[in-house]
Protein backbone atom coordinates (compact mmCIF):
# COMPACT_ATOMS: atom_id res chain seq x y z
CA UNK A 1 0.00 0.00 0.00
CA UNK A 2 1.59 3.23 -1.09
CA UNK A 3 1.53 5.64 1.80
CA UNK A 4 2.77 8.33 -0.52
CA UNK A 5 -0.40 8.57 -2.58
CA UNK A 6 -2.50 10.51 -0.13
CA UNK A 7 -4.24 13.53 -1.51
CA UNK A 8 -4.20 16.83 0.22
CA UNK A 9 -7.32 17.02 2.36
CA UNK A 10 -9.94 19.18 0.67
CA UNK A 11 -10.37 21.18 3.85
CA UNK A 12 -6.96 22.82 3.44
CA UNK A 13 -7.91 24.91 0.42
CA UNK A 14 -11.49 25.43 1.51
CA UNK A 15 -10.49 26.82 4.88
CA UNK A 16 -8.37 29.51 3.30
CA UNK A 17 -11.36 30.97 1.55
CA UNK A 18 -13.99 30.44 4.19
CA UNK A 19 -12.23 31.36 7.42
CA UNK A 20 -14.97 31.44 10.03
CA UNK A 21 -15.50 34.67 11.98
CA UNK A 22 -13.81 34.91 15.34
CA UNK A 23 -15.73 33.21 18.11
CA UNK A 24 -17.21 30.57 15.80
CA UNK A 25 -16.91 27.13 17.35
CA UNK A 26 -15.85 24.22 15.20
CA UNK A 27 -18.14 21.23 15.34
CA UNK A 28 -17.22 18.71 17.99
CA UNK A 29 -16.12 15.19 17.27
CA UNK A 30 -19.03 12.81 17.79
CA UNK A 31 -18.67 10.56 20.81
CA UNK A 32 -18.44 7.25 18.92
CA UNK A 33 -15.59 8.62 16.85
CA UNK A 34 -13.73 9.74 19.95
CA UNK A 35 -14.20 6.31 21.47
CA UNK A 36 -12.93 4.70 18.27
CA UNK A 37 -9.78 6.82 18.36
CA UNK A 38 -9.09 6.05 21.99
CA UNK A 39 -9.84 2.35 21.76
CA UNK A 40 -7.91 2.10 18.51
CA UNK A 41 -4.86 3.73 20.00
CA UNK A 42 -4.95 1.45 23.05
CA UNK A 43 -5.50 -1.66 20.96
CA UNK A 44 -2.49 -0.94 18.80
CA UNK A 45 -0.14 0.29 21.48
CA UNK A 46 -0.75 -2.27 24.20
CA UNK A 47 0.60 -5.36 22.39
CA UNK A 48 3.72 -3.44 21.37
CA UNK A 49 4.33 -2.24 24.90
CA UNK A 50 3.53 -5.64 26.37
CA UNK A 51 6.00 -7.32 24.04
CA UNK A 52 8.73 -4.88 24.96
CA UNK A 53 7.94 -5.38 28.64
CA UNK A 54 7.96 -9.14 28.27
CA UNK A 55 11.32 -9.02 26.57
CA UNK A 56 12.85 -7.05 29.40
CA UNK A 57 11.36 -8.83 32.39
CA UNK A 58 11.28 -12.56 32.98
CA UNK A 59 9.54 -12.23 36.31
CA UNK A 60 12.65 -11.32 38.26
CA UNK A 61 12.98 -7.65 37.40
CA UNK A 62 14.50 -5.63 34.58
CA UNK A 63 17.06 -7.56 32.56
CA UNK A 64 18.46 -7.88 29.07
CA UNK A 65 18.82 -11.64 29.47
CA UNK A 66 16.30 -12.44 26.76
CA UNK A 67 18.28 -10.39 24.26
CA UNK A 68 21.60 -11.82 25.42
CA UNK A 69 20.07 -15.25 24.99
CA UNK A 70 19.51 -15.04 21.26
CA UNK A 71 22.54 -12.87 20.61
CA UNK A 72 24.66 -15.73 21.91
CA UNK A 73 22.92 -18.30 19.74
CA UNK A 74 24.73 -19.33 16.58
CA UNK A 75 21.44 -20.22 14.96
CA UNK A 76 20.30 -16.63 15.27
CA UNK A 77 23.18 -15.39 13.17
CA UNK A 78 22.83 -18.27 10.78
CA UNK A 79 19.15 -17.59 10.13
CA UNK A 80 19.61 -13.84 9.91
CA UNK A 81 22.30 -14.40 7.29
CA UNK A 82 20.08 -16.78 5.39
CA UNK A 83 17.18 -14.33 5.44
CA UNK A 84 19.44 -11.46 4.42
CA UNK A 85 20.82 -13.59 1.61
CA UNK A 86 17.36 -14.28 0.25
CA UNK A 87 16.27 -10.70 0.78
CA UNK A 88 19.24 -9.50 -1.23
CA UNK A 89 18.64 -12.06 -4.00
CA UNK A 90 14.98 -11.15 -4.12
CA UNK A 91 15.52 -7.40 -4.30
CA UNK A 92 18.19 -7.65 -6.98
CA UNK A 93 16.26 -10.21 -8.98
CA UNK A 94 13.05 -8.26 -8.72
CA UNK A 95 14.59 -4.95 -9.76
CA UNK A 96 16.54 -6.51 -12.63
CA UNK A 97 13.39 -8.24 -13.84
CA UNK A 98 10.80 -5.53 -13.36
CA UNK A 99 12.64 -2.25 -13.97
CA UNK A 100 13.55 -2.87 -17.64
CA UNK A 101 10.19 -4.51 -18.27
CA UNK A 102 8.21 -1.62 -16.77
CA UNK A 103 10.33 0.86 -18.71
CA UNK A 104 9.77 -1.02 -21.94
CA UNK A 105 6.02 -1.27 -21.40
CA UNK A 106 5.72 2.40 -20.55
CA UNK A 107 7.83 3.40 -23.54
CA UNK A 108 6.80 1.08 -26.34
CA UNK A 109 3.81 -1.02 -25.26
CA UNK A 110 1.44 1.05 -23.14
CA UNK A 111 -1.44 -1.18 -24.13
CA UNK A 112 0.32 -4.00 -22.31
CA UNK A 113 0.06 -2.28 -18.96
CA UNK A 114 -3.22 -3.96 -17.94
CA UNK A 115 -1.57 -7.33 -18.51
CA UNK A 116 1.34 -6.29 -16.31
CA UNK A 117 -1.06 -5.11 -13.63
CA UNK A 118 -2.92 -8.39 -13.80
CA UNK A 119 0.19 -10.54 -13.60
CA UNK A 120 1.72 -8.54 -10.78
CA UNK A 121 -1.54 -8.70 -8.84
CA UNK A 122 -1.80 -12.47 -9.12
CA UNK A 123 0.24 -13.01 -5.94
CA UNK A 124 -2.69 -11.46 -4.07
CA UNK A 125 -5.03 -14.03 -5.56
CA UNK A 126 -2.61 -16.89 -4.90
CA UNK A 127 -1.73 -16.70 -1.21
CA UNK A 128 1.68 -18.12 -0.22
CA UNK A 129 0.17 -21.41 0.99
CA UNK A 130 -1.32 -22.09 -2.40
CA UNK A 131 1.86 -20.95 -4.08
CA UNK A 132 3.82 -23.47 -2.05
CA UNK A 133 1.43 -26.26 -3.05
CA UNK A 134 1.66 -25.18 -6.67
CA UNK A 135 5.45 -24.89 -6.66
CA UNK A 136 5.81 -28.28 -5.04
CA UNK A 137 3.70 -29.88 -7.73
CA UNK A 138 5.43 -28.04 -10.56
CA UNK A 139 9.02 -28.13 -9.39
CA UNK A 140 9.18 -30.88 -6.80
CA UNK A 141 10.59 -33.25 -9.34
CA UNK A 142 7.30 -34.91 -10.18
CA UNK A 143 5.88 -32.21 -12.43
CA UNK A 144 5.65 -32.15 -16.23
CA UNK A 145 9.23 -30.93 -16.35
CA UNK A 146 10.99 -33.26 -13.93
CA UNK A 147 13.48 -30.81 -12.50
CA UNK A 148 13.55 -30.60 -8.72
CA UNK A 149 13.97 -26.96 -7.80
CA UNK A 150 12.46 -27.44 -4.38
CA UNK A 151 15.25 -27.36 -1.81
CA UNK A 152 17.48 -25.18 -3.94
CA UNK A 153 18.01 -21.46 -3.27
CA UNK A 154 16.60 -20.73 -6.71
CA UNK A 155 13.13 -21.85 -5.76
CA UNK A 156 12.76 -19.74 -2.66
CA UNK A 157 14.33 -16.72 -4.34
CA UNK A 158 12.08 -17.16 -7.37
CA UNK A 159 9.00 -17.49 -5.16
CA UNK A 160 9.99 -14.42 -3.16
CA UNK A 161 10.49 -12.39 -6.34
CA UNK A 162 6.96 -13.37 -7.31
CA UNK A 163 5.69 -12.25 -3.90
CA UNK A 164 7.44 -8.91 -4.39
CA UNK A 165 5.82 -8.32 -7.80
CA UNK A 166 2.90 -6.11 -6.74
CA UNK A 167 5.04 -3.87 -4.55
CA UNK A 168 8.04 -3.57 -6.84
CA UNK A 169 6.02 -3.08 -10.01
CA UNK A 170 3.65 -0.67 -8.28
CA UNK A 171 6.46 1.50 -7.02
CA UNK A 172 8.49 1.45 -10.24
CA UNK A 173 5.50 1.95 -12.52
CA UNK A 174 4.30 4.94 -10.50
CA UNK A 175 7.78 6.39 -10.59
CA UNK A 176 8.11 5.93 -14.35
CA UNK A 177 4.75 7.49 -15.02
CA UNK A 178 5.72 10.55 -13.02
CA UNK A 179 8.63 11.26 -15.32
CA UNK A 180 8.84 11.97 -19.01
CA UNK A 181 10.66 8.88 -20.21
CA UNK A 182 10.00 9.59 -23.88
CA UNK A 183 11.86 12.88 -23.82
CA UNK A 184 14.65 11.46 -21.71
CA UNK A 185 15.03 8.49 -24.02
CA UNK A 186 15.05 10.55 -27.18
CA UNK A 187 17.50 13.03 -25.76
CA UNK A 188 19.84 10.24 -24.68
CA UNK A 189 19.52 8.47 -28.02
CA UNK A 190 20.27 11.66 -29.91
CA UNK A 191 23.50 11.79 -27.92
CA UNK A 192 24.30 8.25 -29.02
CA UNK A 193 23.38 6.27 -25.93
CA UNK A 194 22.41 2.63 -26.26
CA UNK A 195 19.59 1.00 -24.29
CA UNK A 196 21.76 -0.12 -21.42
CA UNK A 197 23.21 3.34 -20.94
CA UNK A 198 19.77 4.89 -21.09
CA UNK A 199 18.42 2.56 -18.46
CA UNK A 200 21.27 2.76 -16.03
CA UNK A 201 22.63 6.25 -16.44
CA UNK A 202 19.57 8.24 -17.42
CA UNK A 203 16.37 6.62 -16.16
CA UNK A 204 17.52 4.85 -13.02
CA UNK A 205 18.99 7.90 -11.25
CA UNK A 206 15.65 9.66 -11.67
CA UNK A 207 13.74 6.59 -10.55
CA UNK A 208 15.86 5.93 -7.51
CA UNK A 209 13.33 6.79 -4.76
CA UNK A 210 10.72 4.52 -6.35
CA UNK A 211 13.19 1.67 -6.76
CA UNK A 212 14.36 1.98 -3.19
CA UNK A 213 10.74 2.07 -1.95
CA UNK A 214 9.96 -1.13 -3.79
CA UNK A 215 13.21 -2.66 -2.62
CA UNK A 216 12.60 -1.84 1.02
CA UNK A 217 9.06 -3.24 0.89
CA UNK A 218 10.32 -6.41 -0.71
CA UNK A 219 13.15 -6.64 1.79
CA UNK A 220 10.72 -6.31 4.67
CA UNK A 221 8.46 -8.98 3.19
CA UNK A 222 11.25 -11.48 2.73
CA UNK A 223 12.66 -10.92 6.22
CA UNK A 224 9.23 -11.74 7.63
CA UNK A 225 8.08 -14.46 5.27
CA UNK A 226 7.22 -17.66 7.08
CA UNK A 227 4.96 -19.86 4.97
CA UNK A 228 7.19 -20.79 2.05
CA UNK A 229 10.32 -21.07 4.15
CA UNK A 230 8.57 -23.31 6.66
CA UNK A 231 6.86 -25.61 4.19
CA UNK A 232 9.98 -26.06 2.10
CA UNK A 233 12.33 -26.44 5.06
CA UNK A 234 14.53 -23.41 4.64
CA UNK A 235 15.94 -22.21 7.94
CA UNK A 236 15.25 -18.48 7.86
CA UNK A 237 14.81 -15.91 10.62
CA UNK A 238 11.00 -16.19 11.02
CA UNK A 239 11.41 -19.94 11.32
CA UNK A 240 13.96 -19.36 14.06
CA UNK A 241 11.60 -16.95 15.83
CA UNK A 242 8.81 -19.49 15.80
CA UNK A 243 11.14 -22.27 16.91
CA UNK A 244 12.48 -20.34 19.92
CA UNK A 245 9.05 -18.98 20.69
CA UNK A 246 7.43 -22.33 21.27
CA UNK A 247 9.27 -22.88 24.52
CA UNK A 248 10.68 -19.53 25.58
CA UNK A 249 8.13 -16.73 25.59
CA UNK A 250 10.53 -14.04 26.72
CA UNK A 251 13.17 -14.81 24.11
CA UNK A 252 10.32 -14.84 21.60
CA UNK A 253 9.28 -11.39 22.80
CA UNK A 254 12.84 -10.11 22.41
CA UNK A 255 13.09 -11.56 18.91
CA UNK A 256 9.71 -10.05 18.08
CA UNK A 257 10.93 -6.63 19.16
CA UNK A 258 13.96 -7.16 16.93
CA UNK A 259 11.71 -8.17 14.04
CA UNK A 260 9.45 -5.15 14.52
CA UNK A 261 12.51 -2.92 14.57
CA UNK A 262 13.60 -4.19 11.16
CA UNK A 263 10.14 -3.55 9.72
CA UNK A 264 9.89 -0.10 11.28
CA UNK A 265 13.30 0.89 9.95
CA UNK A 266 12.44 -0.25 6.44
CA UNK A 267 9.16 1.57 6.40
CA UNK A 268 10.63 4.65 8.03
CA UNK A 269 13.21 4.80 5.26
CA UNK A 270 10.45 4.52 2.68
CA UNK A 271 8.62 7.42 4.29
CA UNK A 272 11.79 9.51 4.17
CA UNK A 273 12.32 8.73 0.52
CA UNK A 274 8.70 9.33 -0.49
CA UNK A 275 9.05 12.95 0.56
CA UNK A 276 11.47 13.47 -2.29
CA UNK A 277 9.56 13.92 -5.53
CA UNK A 278 10.85 11.81 -8.41
CA UNK A 279 13.07 13.81 -10.79
CA UNK A 280 10.81 16.25 -12.59
CA UNK A 281 13.41 18.05 -14.65
CA UNK A 282 15.57 15.72 -16.70
CA UNK A 283 19.22 16.05 -15.80
CA UNK A 284 20.21 16.51 -19.44
CA UNK A 285 18.27 19.73 -19.91
CA UNK A 286 19.57 21.64 -16.91
Amino acid at each position, binding site marked *: MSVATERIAPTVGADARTVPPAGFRRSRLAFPLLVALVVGTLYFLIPLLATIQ*SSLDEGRGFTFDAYRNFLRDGDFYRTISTSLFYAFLTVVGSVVLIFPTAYWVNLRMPWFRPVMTL*VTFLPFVIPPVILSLALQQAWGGTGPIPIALVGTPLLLAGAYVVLSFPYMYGAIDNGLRAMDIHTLTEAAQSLGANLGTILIRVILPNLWPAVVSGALLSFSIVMGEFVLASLFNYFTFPIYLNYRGQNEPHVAAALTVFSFAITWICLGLIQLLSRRAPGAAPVATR
Partner: protein
Amino acid sequence: MPLAWLGVLPFLIFAFVFLGLPTVLVVIGAFTDANAHPTLGNFSILTQHNVLNAYQTSIAISGVSAVGGAVVGFLLAYAALHEASYRWIRPILVTFSGVASNFAGVPLAYAFISTLGFTGTLTLLLNNVFHISLEQMGFSLYTFWGLALIYLYFQIPLMVLLMVPTIQGLRREWREASESLGASTAQFWLHVGLPILTPPVLAASLLLFGNAFGAYATAYALAQGGINLVSILIGYFVAGNISFEPNAADAMASGMIVIMTFCILVFSVLQRRTSRWIK
Protein backbone atom coordinates in the same frame (compact mmCIF):
# COMPACT_ATOMS: atom_id res chain seq x y z
CA MET B 1 6.41 -4.54 -33.86
CA PRO B 2 6.59 -8.19 -32.78
CA LEU B 3 10.22 -7.51 -31.80
CA ALA B 4 8.94 -5.29 -29.03
CA TRP B 5 7.76 -8.42 -27.24
CA LEU B 6 11.39 -9.31 -26.56
CA GLY B 7 11.39 -6.57 -23.95
CA VAL B 8 8.74 -8.23 -21.83
CA LEU B 9 9.78 -11.79 -22.54
CA PRO B 10 12.13 -12.32 -19.55
CA PHE B 11 9.43 -11.13 -17.18
CA LEU B 12 6.76 -13.30 -18.78
CA ILE B 13 8.98 -16.36 -18.75
CA PHE B 14 9.81 -15.82 -15.09
CA ALA B 15 6.17 -15.29 -14.19
CA PHE B 16 5.26 -18.44 -16.10
CA VAL B 17 7.90 -20.57 -14.42
CA PHE B 18 7.27 -19.47 -10.86
CA LEU B 19 3.62 -18.52 -10.92
CA GLY B 20 1.75 -19.35 -14.11
CA LEU B 21 2.72 -22.96 -14.66
CA PRO B 22 2.39 -24.00 -11.01
CA THR B 23 -1.02 -22.38 -10.69
CA VAL B 24 -2.27 -23.94 -13.91
CA LEU B 25 -1.10 -27.34 -12.68
CA VAL B 26 -3.08 -26.93 -9.47
CA VAL B 27 -6.24 -25.94 -11.28
CA ILE B 28 -5.90 -28.76 -13.79
CA GLY B 29 -5.09 -31.17 -11.00
CA ALA B 30 -8.32 -30.24 -9.26
CA PHE B 31 -10.29 -31.44 -12.23
CA THR B 32 -8.35 -34.59 -13.09
CA ASP B 33 -7.94 -37.88 -11.28
CA ALA B 34 -4.87 -40.00 -10.63
CA ASN B 35 -4.94 -41.30 -14.18
CA ALA B 36 -5.14 -37.84 -15.71
CA HIS B 37 -8.76 -38.26 -16.68
CA PRO B 38 -11.10 -35.30 -16.23
CA THR B 39 -13.35 -35.60 -13.20
CA LEU B 40 -15.25 -33.62 -10.63
CA GLY B 41 -14.77 -36.26 -7.99
CA ASN B 42 -11.94 -34.46 -6.24
CA PHE B 43 -14.36 -31.93 -4.87
CA SER B 44 -15.97 -34.59 -2.73
CA ILE B 45 -13.11 -33.88 -0.33
CA LEU B 46 -15.10 -30.83 0.67
CA THR B 47 -17.60 -33.11 2.37
CA GLN B 48 -14.96 -34.71 4.53
CA HIS B 49 -15.56 -33.71 8.12
CA ASN B 50 -12.30 -31.96 8.91
CA VAL B 51 -12.20 -30.22 5.54
CA LEU B 52 -15.73 -28.92 5.92
CA ASN B 53 -14.88 -27.76 9.42
CA ALA B 54 -11.79 -26.00 8.11
CA TYR B 55 -13.80 -24.14 5.49
CA GLN B 56 -16.39 -23.14 8.07
CA THR B 57 -13.76 -21.85 10.44
CA SER B 58 -11.86 -20.03 7.72
CA ILE B 59 -14.99 -18.36 6.39
CA ALA B 60 -16.12 -17.48 9.89
CA ILE B 61 -12.85 -15.94 10.96
CA SER B 62 -12.45 -14.09 7.68
CA GLY B 63 -15.97 -12.74 7.98
CA VAL B 64 -15.64 -11.71 11.60
CA SER B 65 -12.27 -10.02 11.13
CA ALA B 66 -13.46 -8.36 7.91
CA VAL B 67 -16.56 -6.90 9.52
CA GLY B 68 -14.71 -5.89 12.68
CA GLY B 69 -11.83 -4.46 10.69
CA ALA B 70 -14.19 -2.62 8.36
CA VAL B 71 -16.22 -1.01 11.11
CA VAL B 72 -13.31 0.03 13.33
CA GLY B 73 -11.11 0.96 10.38
CA PHE B 74 -13.79 3.14 8.87
CA LEU B 75 -14.50 4.87 12.18
CA LEU B 76 -10.80 5.51 12.77
CA ALA B 77 -10.27 6.90 9.28
CA TYR B 78 -13.37 9.05 9.54
CA ALA B 79 -12.41 10.29 12.98
CA ALA B 80 -8.91 11.18 11.86
CA LEU B 81 -10.14 13.05 8.79
CA HIS B 82 -12.96 14.86 10.54
CA GLU B 83 -12.50 18.58 10.52
CA ALA B 84 -12.91 18.71 14.28
CA SER B 85 -9.95 16.52 15.09
CA TYR B 86 -6.34 17.58 15.30
CA ARG B 87 -4.43 17.80 12.05
CA TRP B 88 -1.57 15.63 13.28
CA ILE B 89 -3.76 12.59 13.84
CA ARG B 90 -4.11 11.74 10.17
CA PRO B 91 -0.41 11.43 9.21
CA ILE B 92 0.32 9.42 12.33
CA LEU B 93 -2.64 7.14 11.68
CA VAL B 94 -1.71 6.60 8.04
CA THR B 95 1.94 5.95 8.80
CA PHE B 96 1.14 3.56 11.59
CA SER B 97 -1.41 1.78 9.41
CA GLY B 98 1.18 1.35 6.71
CA VAL B 99 3.48 -0.30 9.20
CA ALA B 100 0.85 -2.29 11.08
CA SER B 101 -0.74 -3.80 7.99
CA ASN B 102 2.58 -5.56 7.47
CA PHE B 103 2.82 -6.83 11.03
CA ALA B 104 0.98 -10.03 10.26
CA GLY B 105 2.55 -13.40 10.81
CA VAL B 106 4.85 -14.88 13.38
CA PRO B 107 5.93 -11.68 15.21
CA LEU B 108 2.32 -10.58 15.59
CA ALA B 109 1.28 -13.89 17.09
CA TYR B 110 4.07 -13.75 19.64
CA ALA B 111 3.32 -10.11 20.41
CA PHE B 112 -0.19 -11.13 21.38
CA ILE B 113 1.07 -14.14 23.30
CA SER B 114 3.29 -11.72 25.22
CA THR B 115 0.21 -9.64 25.92
CA LEU B 116 -2.66 -12.03 26.50
CA GLY B 117 -1.06 -15.45 26.75
CA PHE B 118 -0.96 -17.42 29.98
CA THR B 119 2.03 -15.44 31.25
CA GLY B 120 1.30 -12.37 29.15
CA THR B 121 1.87 -8.89 30.50
CA LEU B 122 -1.78 -7.89 30.38
CA THR B 123 -2.97 -11.22 31.76
CA LEU B 124 -0.63 -10.93 34.72
CA LEU B 125 -1.48 -7.27 35.23
CA LEU B 126 -5.20 -8.01 35.33
CA ASN B 127 -4.57 -10.92 37.64
CA ASN B 128 -2.23 -9.32 40.14
CA VAL B 129 -3.47 -5.75 40.24
CA PHE B 130 -7.15 -5.99 39.40
CA HIS B 131 -7.71 -9.61 40.45
CA ILE B 132 -9.44 -10.37 37.16
CA SER B 133 -8.69 -13.80 35.82
CA LEU B 134 -9.13 -14.02 32.07
CA GLU B 135 -9.01 -17.77 32.31
CA GLN B 136 -11.93 -17.89 34.68
CA MET B 137 -13.83 -15.57 32.41
CA GLY B 138 -13.43 -18.14 29.71
CA PHE B 139 -11.16 -16.11 27.49
CA SER B 140 -8.23 -17.78 25.84
CA LEU B 141 -6.04 -16.42 23.12
CA TYR B 142 -5.73 -19.84 21.56
CA THR B 143 -9.30 -20.02 20.35
CA PHE B 144 -11.34 -18.69 17.46
CA TRP B 145 -12.03 -15.36 19.14
CA GLY B 146 -8.44 -14.99 20.21
CA LEU B 147 -7.29 -15.43 16.64
CA ALA B 148 -9.97 -13.01 15.44
CA LEU B 149 -8.65 -10.44 17.90
CA ILE B 150 -5.16 -10.89 16.48
CA TYR B 151 -6.34 -10.71 12.88
CA LEU B 152 -7.88 -7.32 13.60
CA TYR B 153 -4.37 -5.99 14.15
CA PHE B 154 -3.65 -6.07 10.43
CA GLN B 155 -7.23 -5.86 9.17
CA ILE B 156 -8.00 -2.52 10.79
CA PRO B 157 -4.91 -0.75 9.38
CA LEU B 158 -5.62 -2.16 5.94
CA MET B 159 -9.13 -0.72 6.13
CA VAL B 160 -7.76 2.63 7.26
CA LEU B 161 -5.37 2.76 4.31
CA LEU B 162 -8.19 1.91 1.92
CA MET B 163 -10.65 4.35 3.45
CA VAL B 164 -8.48 7.46 3.89
CA PRO B 165 -8.39 8.39 0.17
CA THR B 166 -12.08 7.54 -0.16
CA ILE B 167 -13.23 9.64 2.77
CA GLN B 168 -11.00 12.48 1.66
CA GLY B 169 -12.84 12.36 -1.63
CA LEU B 170 -16.10 13.06 0.14
CA ARG B 171 -16.26 16.70 -0.69
CA ARG B 172 -17.17 19.33 1.85
CA GLU B 173 -19.15 21.05 -0.88
CA TRP B 174 -21.64 18.20 -0.99
CA ARG B 175 -22.30 18.56 2.73
CA GLU B 176 -22.62 22.30 2.42
CA ALA B 177 -24.89 21.99 -0.62
CA SER B 178 -27.16 19.54 1.15
CA GLU B 179 -27.31 21.76 4.24
CA SER B 180 -28.13 24.79 2.14
CA LEU B 181 -31.07 22.82 0.74
CA GLY B 182 -32.26 22.17 4.27
CA ALA B 183 -31.16 18.59 4.79
CA SER B 184 -30.32 17.34 8.26
CA THR B 185 -27.25 15.28 9.08
CA ALA B 186 -29.27 12.09 8.91
CA GLN B 187 -30.72 13.03 5.56
CA PHE B 188 -27.31 13.87 4.19
CA TRP B 189 -25.99 10.47 5.16
CA LEU B 190 -29.05 8.66 3.93
CA HIS B 191 -29.25 10.29 0.51
CA VAL B 192 -25.68 11.35 -0.22
CA GLY B 193 -23.10 9.91 2.14
CA LEU B 194 -24.09 6.26 2.34
CA PRO B 195 -24.88 5.74 -1.36
CA ILE B 196 -21.46 7.08 -2.25
CA LEU B 197 -19.58 5.28 0.48
CA THR B 198 -21.27 1.89 0.32
CA PRO B 199 -19.44 0.55 -2.76
CA PRO B 200 -15.93 1.39 -1.53
CA VAL B 201 -16.67 0.17 2.00
CA LEU B 202 -18.04 -3.08 0.64
CA ALA B 203 -15.11 -3.41 -1.73
CA ALA B 204 -12.63 -2.87 1.07
CA SER B 205 -14.45 -5.36 3.31
CA LEU B 206 -14.15 -7.99 0.61
CA LEU B 207 -10.47 -7.33 0.33
CA LEU B 208 -10.18 -7.76 4.08
CA PHE B 209 -12.07 -11.03 3.83
CA GLY B 210 -9.69 -12.35 1.21
CA ASN B 211 -6.74 -11.13 3.19
CA ALA B 212 -7.80 -13.13 6.24
CA PHE B 213 -8.84 -16.19 4.26
CA GLY B 214 -5.39 -16.66 2.79
CA ALA B 215 -3.52 -15.99 6.01
CA TYR B 216 -1.41 -18.82 7.38
CA ALA B 217 1.58 -17.70 9.41
CA THR B 218 -0.30 -15.92 12.20
CA ALA B 219 -2.60 -18.85 12.88
CA TYR B 220 0.24 -21.33 12.65
CA ALA B 221 2.50 -19.44 15.01
CA LEU B 222 -0.32 -19.10 17.52
CA ALA B 223 -1.39 -22.70 17.75
CA GLN B 224 1.31 -24.49 15.74
CA GLY B 225 -1.37 -25.85 13.47
CA GLY B 226 -3.90 -26.56 16.17
CA ILE B 227 -6.55 -24.27 14.70
CA ASN B 228 -8.28 -25.89 11.77
CA LEU B 229 -8.21 -23.52 8.82
CA VAL B 230 -8.15 -24.23 5.09
CA SER B 231 -4.73 -22.63 4.76
CA ILE B 232 -3.34 -24.69 7.65
CA LEU B 233 -4.80 -27.85 6.15
CA ILE B 234 -3.22 -27.21 2.79
CA GLY B 235 0.03 -26.40 4.56
CA TYR B 236 -0.12 -29.74 6.37
CA PHE B 237 -0.46 -31.46 3.04
CA VAL B 238 2.51 -29.66 1.49
CA ALA B 239 4.66 -30.49 4.50
CA GLY B 240 3.64 -34.11 4.16
CA ASN B 241 1.96 -34.25 7.55
CA ILE B 242 -1.42 -35.28 6.28
CA SER B 243 -2.37 -37.52 3.45
CA PHE B 244 -4.76 -36.31 0.87
CA GLU B 245 -4.68 -37.35 -2.70
CA PRO B 246 -2.69 -34.62 -4.50
CA ASN B 247 -5.72 -33.98 -6.68
CA ALA B 248 -7.91 -33.54 -3.64
CA ALA B 249 -5.45 -30.98 -2.26
CA ASP B 250 -5.60 -29.25 -5.64
CA ALA B 251 -9.37 -29.15 -5.31
CA MET B 252 -9.14 -27.50 -1.91
CA ALA B 253 -6.59 -25.02 -3.22
CA SER B 254 -8.75 -24.24 -6.25
CA GLY B 255 -11.64 -23.54 -3.91
CA MET B 256 -9.46 -21.01 -2.15
CA ILE B 257 -8.34 -19.48 -5.45
CA VAL B 258 -11.96 -19.06 -6.51
CA ILE B 259 -12.80 -17.27 -3.27
CA MET B 260 -9.77 -14.97 -3.53
CA THR B 261 -10.44 -14.21 -7.21
CA PHE B 262 -14.04 -13.38 -6.38
CA CYS B 263 -12.95 -10.96 -3.68
CA ILE B 264 -10.40 -9.19 -5.84
CA LEU B 265 -12.67 -9.03 -8.89
CA VAL B 266 -15.62 -7.57 -7.01
CA PHE B 267 -13.22 -5.17 -5.31
CA SER B 268 -11.96 -3.90 -8.69
CA VAL B 269 -15.44 -3.53 -10.10
CA LEU B 270 -16.72 -1.65 -7.06
CA GLN B 271 -13.65 0.60 -7.02
CA ARG B 272 -14.32 1.57 -10.60
CA ARG B 273 -17.88 2.50 -9.65
CA THR B 274 -16.60 4.52 -6.72
CA SER B 275 -14.21 6.53 -8.85
CA ARG B 276 -17.18 8.04 -10.64
CA TRP B 277 -17.74 10.18 -7.57
CA ILE B 278 -14.51 10.05 -5.68
CA LYS B 279 -11.43 10.89 -7.69
